[in-house]
């Protein structure tokens, strides 16, 4: 039974996160199917998928991607269509009708006109709209380039500029604005232009590398073997060398094209996608995908090749049980027909992250499974810092990446990893945050109300600060109790086998039921046999099976929902502020950790070191936590070292002074006078006169308090406070001194009831002594 539980548990984690794939496509697809369609075209300038019929053209927006998007349509004239693109302002539809002619149609007026080649010797290879200042559209012809501008007055195109080259074929992506023109016998000589809004940049001519199978053969480079790829805002060209089975990489600079090494390939057909700046190399023949994070110098893949998964596929009726009634039979059947077509022949890869299945008209968006890929990184290199770096670079699912980073951090600390390793991990996070602050990306995604510091700036009441750290009201004022304990922290481990997360949220977005045919079949007989529907249906499982419900609980305490709930809006950066580090790492970890406070202090010290290097301010509650941890383990001497480091004109404390810290020192100092004094000194140092005076009185130093109050002009206290203290001490002289003090320094004190009351007490006391 026990074995059962564990095996099914690992099953959950696998099926949940798709641990066998770090890249997946999500069912349902965008269906670009129209009866009578004559083909599918991708307009990458407008990110439209276009399907023309004989008299109409339908277009689907792919950004933002939604399977439910409805097509828009335009009517067109009948005729052959070689290529079709809307102008960037979407006013004109351009259709290449033949090698010599392009037809333009004004969408508002319906007027059309044509542009033809001037000579018979040249033919049009293609065209694209551009936002570069001198022209609106570029024709790529075998004889060179024509730059044309559209004049809305005359409703005609006129030639702005022309460049003469021999062009065999060309590659262009709107994303990079880069145009590569191939020429030469082997088509490996390139001329490049970048037509950006800043103007036209001509790149130096360069040659691509082609291996020869033997001395005489001269392979010819084909257009489909050259890919322009944009990652991290950098433009690369990747060229497939079929002979060497290598993917050569070139990076474009304004004045140079620099080879960047090569990646091995395992399939003669290669396709490339970019998801969130991660390069996906589809080995189409092998039906696997390899991920690269082309950021650092390393050209090592993120992970071993793994298949592309289709997720969220409804289970066909034949395989489902009682709860399958809700599944639409028709759709299930429909899908099961195409379910096996992953890396099918009809697949066309669109820049940057779309797949169009020309056979079915389905358009899929490729998703990256951050959890799975980060596990893959850690599994392949066992380098947690590398994994964090990877996650920190993710923009698409920044909130999720952030949650993962936090979870990884917690796990590192809870697992007592060597301090040096945790330190490097913290360095990564702090540097990333520092960078995001400098570039401003950290604040971009965060609305004013959700500003991470806004919560922290609330003046904490003494009780809150002095109290237990368990009262963790996070920066957003929400309770985060879900998150501790068996929550994400313990769930996510840096060991792949322990990884159990769920993508159920994503599934739920699109379909109410979590029945996955794919996963089941992938799992093989073992699991299915034991527990036919297993965890796939766990969300709706009515069987009261205790171990399973526990699993459900675990797999359902999710990263995603937290991400949205806790971090509010989708952050555009995965950067983690020190305040968040406190709320989501140090505070929860401190609560969970048992024993070895020295280790936690060590981690905090490393964090402070990182923050200090990057000149980042650390929230006071982290210092408060440090004081708590040190005091709880009675390391008062060390606490002293943290708080003061012999005063010499400048403050050199590791723990920066703040009221919160001072109050914590006073609280912790109940058992240790020296620590209490540190708190008092800090209050005075911060010129928190009122608190300082009150505490002095509380400790019985009322005369000192009076002197201090007078010197610093503190007049926010009641005289009775001091008078009471003096009476309590039973010292006649002191009481007289205090009375005198107030009589002298507070105008009108002699007329108050305090004065008369305490004068009487004084007289009684003195007469008592006289007797």
């Amino acid at each position: 039974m026990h074995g059962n539980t564990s095996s099914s548990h690992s099953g959950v984690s696998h099926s949940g996160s798709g641990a066998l794939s770090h890249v997946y496509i999500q069912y349902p697809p965008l269906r670009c199917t129209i009866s009578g369609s004559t083909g599918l075209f991708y307009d990458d300038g407008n990110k439209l998928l276009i399907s023309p019929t004989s008299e109409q053209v339908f277009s689907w927006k792919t950004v933002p991607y939604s399977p439910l998007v409805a097509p828009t349509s335009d009517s067109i004239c009948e005729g052959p269509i070689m290529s079709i693109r809307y102008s960037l302002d979407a006013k004109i539809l351009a259709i290449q009708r033949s090698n010599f002619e392009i037809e333009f149609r004004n969408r508002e007026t319906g007027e059309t006109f044509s542009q033809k080649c001037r000579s018979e010797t040249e033919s049009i290879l293609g065209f694209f709209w551009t936002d570069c200042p001198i022209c609106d559209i570029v024709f790529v012809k075998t004889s060179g380039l024509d730059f044309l501008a559209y004049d809305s007055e005359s409703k005609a195109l006129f030639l702005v500029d022309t460049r003469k080259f021999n062009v065999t074929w060309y590659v262009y992506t709107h994303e990079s604005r880069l145009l590569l023109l191939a020429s030469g016998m082997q088509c490996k000589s390139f001329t490049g232009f970048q037509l950006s809004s800043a103007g036209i940049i001509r790149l130096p001519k360069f040659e691509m590398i082609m291996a020869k199978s033997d001395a005489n053969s001269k392979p010819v480079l084909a257009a489909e073997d050259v890919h322009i790829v944009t990652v991290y805002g950098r433009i690369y060209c990747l060229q497939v060398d079929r002979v060497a089975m290598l993917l050569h990489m070139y990076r474009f600079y304004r004045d140079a094209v620099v080879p960047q090494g090569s990646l091995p390939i395992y399939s003669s057909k290669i396709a490339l996608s970019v998801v969130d700046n991660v390069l996906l190399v589809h080995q189409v023949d092998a039906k696997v995908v390899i991920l690269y994070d082309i950021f650092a110098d390393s050209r090592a893949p993120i992970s071993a090749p793994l298949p592309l998964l289709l997720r969220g596929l409804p289970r066909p009726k034949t395989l489902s049980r009682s709860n399958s009634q809700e599944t639409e039979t028709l759709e299930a059947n429909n899908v099961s027909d195409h379910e096996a077509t992953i890396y099918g022949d009809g697949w066309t890869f669109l820049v940057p992250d779309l797949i169009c299945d020309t056979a079915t008209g389905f358009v899929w968006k490729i998703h990256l499974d951050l959890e799975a890929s980060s596990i893959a990184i850690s599994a392949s290199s066992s380098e947690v810092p590398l994994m964090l770096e990877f996650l920190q670079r993710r923009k698409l699912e920044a909130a999720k990446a952030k949650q993962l980073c936090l979870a990884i951090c917690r796990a590192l600390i809870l697992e007592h990893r060597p301090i040096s390793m945790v330190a490097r991990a913290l360095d990564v996070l702090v540097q990333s945050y520092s960078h995001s602050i400098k570039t401003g990306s950290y604040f971009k995604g965060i609305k004013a109300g959700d500003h991470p510091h806004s919560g922290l700036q609330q003046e904490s009441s003494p009780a809150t600060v002095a109290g237990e750290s368990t009262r963790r009201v996070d920066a957003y004022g929400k309770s985060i109790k879900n998150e501790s304990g068996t929550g994400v922290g313990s769930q996510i481990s840096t060991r792949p086998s322990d990884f159990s997360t769920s993508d159920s949220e994503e599934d739920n977005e699109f379909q109410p039921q979590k029945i996955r045919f794919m996963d089941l079949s992938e799992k093989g007989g073992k699991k299915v046999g034991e527990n036919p529907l297993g965890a796939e249906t766990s969300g709706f499982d009515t069987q009261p099976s205790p171990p399973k419900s526990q699993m459900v609980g675990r797999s359902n305490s999710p990263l995603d929902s937290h991400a949205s709930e806790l971090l509010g809006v989708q952050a555009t950066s995965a950067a983690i502020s020190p305040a968040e580090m406190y709320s989501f790492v140090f505070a929860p970890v401190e609560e969970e950790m048992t024993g070895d406070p020295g280790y936690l202090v060590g981690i905090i010290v490393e964090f402070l070191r990182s923050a200090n290097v990057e000149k980042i301010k650390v929230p006071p509650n982290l210092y408060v936590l440090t004081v708590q941890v040190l005091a709880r383990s009675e390391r008062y001497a060390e606490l002293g070292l943290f708080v003061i480091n012999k005063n010499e004109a400048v403050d050199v404390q590791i723990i920066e002074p703040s009221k919160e810290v001072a109050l914590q020192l006073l609280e912790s100092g109940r058992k240790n006078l020296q620590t209490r004094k540190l708190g008092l000194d800090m209050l005075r140092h911060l010129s928190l006169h009122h608190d300082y005076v009150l505490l002095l009185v509380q400790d019985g130093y009322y005369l000192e308090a009076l002197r201090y109050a007078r010197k610093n002009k503190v007049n926010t206290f009641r005289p009775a406070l001091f008078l009471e203290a003096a009476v309590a001490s039973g010292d006649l002289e002191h009481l007289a001194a205090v009375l005198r003090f107030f009589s002298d320094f507070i105008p009108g004190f002699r007329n108050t009831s305090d004065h008369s009351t305490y004068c009487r007490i004084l007289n009684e006391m003195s007469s008592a002594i006289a007797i």
Partner: protein
Amino acid sequence: MGMSSAVTSNETMQLCVFDLRRGQHEGQELDKILFFYPADLPFSTQLSVIGLSEGLITFTRIFSPEAACEVIDAERHSHVFYQAEPDIWMVMIVEKNKELEAIWRSDALREVLKEVHSLFVMFYGPIRSLLEKEPGGGLSRSRLYSFIMDYLSDFLVGKRLQLPSFRDCLRERGSVQMLTISREAAIEVQSLVRVLESCSGSTQCCSLIMFQDLLVSTTLSPDDTINLFTYAVMRLAPNALSSGASSWSYLRKGNTVSQAVTAFVGNSRSVSEQISGSHDTSPGADRNYNVAGPLQHDKWSKGKDGFLVTDVSGVEVSSLISATPTIWLQQKEERVYLCAYQHRNLTIILLVPVNSIVNGEQGMSLLKQQVLENASLKIFKVEEKLSKGWGGENAYHVSGYRYLLVDHDRNVSRATPPGKVTTLAKESLLSMSKLREEVDLEKGQAKWEDPNHEKELEICIRAKNNAWVIARVSRGKELYMVLEKANETLLYASDALEKFSNRYCNGVFSLD
């Protein structure tokens, strides 16, 4: 120093340690004596000194059972008492002689007694437990003898013992001197501390880091910190190692250690070697080796790997070659290995519980290897950082001031560097010494009256030479200063103190 050479060492000072629980029967009086200096005094004289002391203790205990007498000031001698352990007393008798500058502050002398006892306990454990284990007391006596003689040798100037006198009034024995470091360096140091402590794996070890003769970091209890710091300054710090002489000794140490001392120490070592290994009954006692004559000079040297090595007494035949000495920590009441590493100016002392290291020396060499592997880089970095920030010998000199700053809460003191103190006139120093004596008295009384209320105190004296001699006590912190060539008004003196307080003491001594 222009001292009369007519006086022999034997006549200036007597020091004895005795146990009131021993020798209570007639004829066994000698049994009380655990240590007597000078040792060559006839037993009758020794007994009469101890008898007088014992009588005084017994008498004063009638009135004050908790704290018997502290000092007797006779016309020509001062007797300074210190109860080191219950019923184990140390008494120092010094001759007063104005011409010879033999003007003492009794608290300073008591601090000497306290220090030697604390150090002894650090290496051998409490005297009482030694005596309990070995009722004859032979081993205890020989250990005390060699240890105290070694300790006293630090005070030898020529053939004369020179104890802390009024000239040392701007010094506080029994406190730690700390290095001021930047926040960045402080974080680096703390980071190093954690790495060091993680080297011992799961076992809890403590560390103490020093830069030259100054403390940088400690994770020991305050008392243990003082003891280990004192010892490290005396024998382990780079200065102490290289010169073979104490850099910290208040007075310049003479090169000639008296023949008698050397001879005796040599003798005692063989004694202790014979008996060692059987004296300690704590678990794993058979592995507890002491430094042979821990206070002897030139006992430590720096090994090739940067670790400091010493001779260790009581190597057992069966065990592997043992090289790591152990000390006794008061707070935790356990024996720990003392493992010291030195990189240039930085001395790092790691203390690992003996019980936690299963296979003794092998475990220690593993630990050392761990330190070298994991912490080397950090150590170098910290050393470099501290060296850069270090202001040199006179870093804590404040021109115009001669001061002593004591923080009793943290057992930390800072003072004008000794070289600068010597520029003061004798008159100023005498006044300060006297003033400190007053403050000592005042503090003692205040403590007696209300131990929970710390007294505030300020005294300004215009000395005969027109110097201002000032003492200010405020909530556990004390500031003493001498202002020579200062303006004559009290206001000026008070302002000077205020300025100093604001600038260097966070305003702790500012007159509120």
